[in-house]
């Protein structure tokens, strides 16, 4: 089931086309990555999902039905530019936002106590927001975002400003929510987190959806069928094995450990390569190199097609 779907959404600001017929489909219960360079249109798309702005044309669906204003109660949004009322006390403010989303006073209080204890920030309840550090304020804001346990959670750059411990904490919470069946969309430039967390992604570039689909499939499809062999030995030890049959991509040696990358033809399996190399050197590592999202991002955005196996648009 799709929790959210956009069909040919167009959004124009006074002098600039923000979204050019963008379509996107977010499956329920999975973590969805929304990627793209700055200014590509991600934030506009997120605002449309949140009903902050409306598309000029195109349709948007929430849980199968055309989206309406009241659907926002099922959505939680953490904007990239964090913001809270500086002079208001933390507890009071959290209660306010919870109630804005439709929770009752007592329910808000109960849940806030739970989360504040979980994050170990009970001491901040009566402090004014301006007394907190940036990371602390973000923790508070995260809590206010998810307090009403929305089915769809949208985080814009959630990890920015978090130290590794808090970032890990956040990751755990996100995975917890996924386990409980929530859907999470997050927009980020942090590709490592994308690889770690996301099931599906959409890459927006210059107002268009240029890449969409399941992350593993995409990575494999952008793969060059490159394998890496690490062995103890000297450089060039397996050169004679590769010559003529395999394409050498790169070879580095570090302290007696050699790392060789070999490109196979499309559909050429890796096992014969290993078998061919094994008798000659002590192999310590053998793996297929799947391109990182970072590389894919750069390649797609910069439009390089040279060594890429062109991937068709995958939609689930």
């Amino acid at each position, binding site marked *: 089931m799709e929790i959210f779907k956009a069909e040919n959404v167009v959004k124009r600001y006074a002098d600039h086309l923000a979204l050019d017929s963008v379509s996107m489909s977010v499956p329920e219960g999975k973590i969805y990555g929304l990627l793209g360079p700055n200014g590509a249109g991600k934030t506009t798309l997120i605002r449309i999902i*949140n009903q902050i702005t409306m598309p000029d044309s195109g349709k948007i669906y929430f849980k199968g039905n055309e989206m309406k204003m009241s659907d926002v109660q099922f*959505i939680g949004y953490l904007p990239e530019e964090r913001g*809270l009322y500086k002079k208001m006390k933390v507890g009071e403010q959290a209660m306010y936002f919870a109630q*804005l989303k439709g929770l009752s006073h007592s329910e808000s209080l109960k849940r806030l106590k739970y989360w504040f204890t979980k994050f170990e920030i009970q001491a901040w309840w009566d402090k004014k927001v301006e007394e907190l550090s940036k990371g602390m304020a973000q923790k508070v804001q995260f809590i206010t975002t998810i307090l009403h346990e929305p089915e769809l959670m949208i985080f814009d750059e959630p990890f920015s400003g978090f130290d590794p411990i808090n970032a890990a904490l956040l990751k755990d919470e996100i995975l917890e929510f996924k386990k409980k069946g929530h859907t999470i969309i997050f927009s980020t430039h942090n590709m490592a987190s994308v690889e770690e967390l996301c099931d599906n992604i959409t890459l927006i570039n210059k107002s268009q959806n240029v890449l969409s689909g399941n992350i593993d499939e995409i990575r494999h499809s952008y793969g060059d069928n490159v394998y890496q062999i690490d062995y103890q030995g000297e450089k060039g030890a397996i050169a004679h094995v590769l010559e003529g049959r395999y394409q050498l991509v790169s070879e580095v040696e570090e302290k007696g450990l050699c790392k060789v990358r070999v490109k196979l033809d499309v559909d050429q399996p890796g096992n014969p390569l290993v078998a061919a190399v094994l008798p000659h050197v002590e192999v310590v590592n053998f793996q297929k190199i799947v391109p990182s999202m970072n590389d894919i991002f750069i390649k797609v955005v910069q439009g390089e097609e040279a060594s890429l196996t062109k991937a068709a648009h995958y939609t689930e």
Partner: protein
Amino acid sequence: MTLLTPILMGALMIVPGILASMGDTTNKKIAVVDRAKIFTNKLQGDEKLSFVYISDEELPAYKSKMKDKGVDAILVINKGVISDPKAAAMYSNDDISIELSSKIESNMTDLIKEEKMRTFNIQNLDEVLKKVKSSVSLNTIKLDENGNEKETNTGVIMGIAYVFGFLMYIFIFLFGSQVMRGVIEEKSNRVVEVIISSVKPIQLMMGKIIGVAAVGLLQFVMWIVLSVAIFSVSKSYLVDSAKSNMANQTQVTSVMAGQNAAEMSEQIAAKADDSETGKIFATISERIVPILFYFVIFFIGGYLLYSSLFAAVGSAVDNETETQQLMLPITLPIILGLMVMMHTFQNPNSSLSFWFSIIPLTSPIVMMARIPFEIPTWEIILSIFILYATIFCSIWLSAKIYRTGILMYGKKTSFKEMIKWIKHS
């Protein structure tokens, strides 16, 4: 703050008044050289002013050592003073207050008049003079259509009009800019994005406007309550003390005029009620209720109109410093209203006053200045109607600007931009 402000404002208004009326509080002694031989022992002193008459020979000594002799000034009157008004001079080491010199001047003028009359050889001059002494205070009486008479006090009404007109100006500006500041704060600390993922922008804008209005009205009500309390307390205090002052004065003049005790107390009673203070309080109490009622209506109207404009301006900028340029078209009509108001409370029924009390942007201030003068009710109703109709338009327009502006950062917004937003939204 709510409690402090009326006390401070009251102090601000009362203290200068007290200080001014205190005037010269020290006892002044004046040495008089009466070369014309008219004034000796006739100049009227009071508790703070006394005269001592010296001869010409003593003059130089007094001139050089005034303080040692215990006098504050020396009044030298030359012979020709009856015909030459400039023939008198006052010498002193310190500056002489206007109050003092005009007191002496009028005193001398009266005495010279008396002297001049003596030359006409009127019989029983002294008695005639006593009977002729009078002082007039004009009673202003308003005639309405039925020919009913009502005593009014123009000065007080003007005062009321001025106060309320000014109050309106202050309040609209104060609370309007509070709205603007709130909008800018929400925009600059980005909390606005979180909020409008839950509510519509116009709901946020209206919520803020109504919220500030509620705070403002609550403060205002508290001030009214406090003012009424202070008013009634001061009324009894002031009128009573005025009565006792009146009693003292009348006693003095009566003694001098040779009246008896019965006549004296009659006079005291009559004078107290008729006194300026009594009249002032009467006028205020009579008119205050409808004035307050209209004040609330016009305040709400003017505030709603201006605060929606302020909200639109706030949404278009990124911080308070950028508001200067955009604020201009909003502050202009307010100031214009103030300026017309200055004209209005002297001419409440001129066409200038009429038109400016109808035009929605200036009407709250100018109309407030007109209302104490009991103008026709239909004019007030018309003005209210137009005002509230305009409010709908301004809120509609402002909402469009607000909706786009609060998410727009970095661009310096001009009016052309804002018009684009309105068309586009």
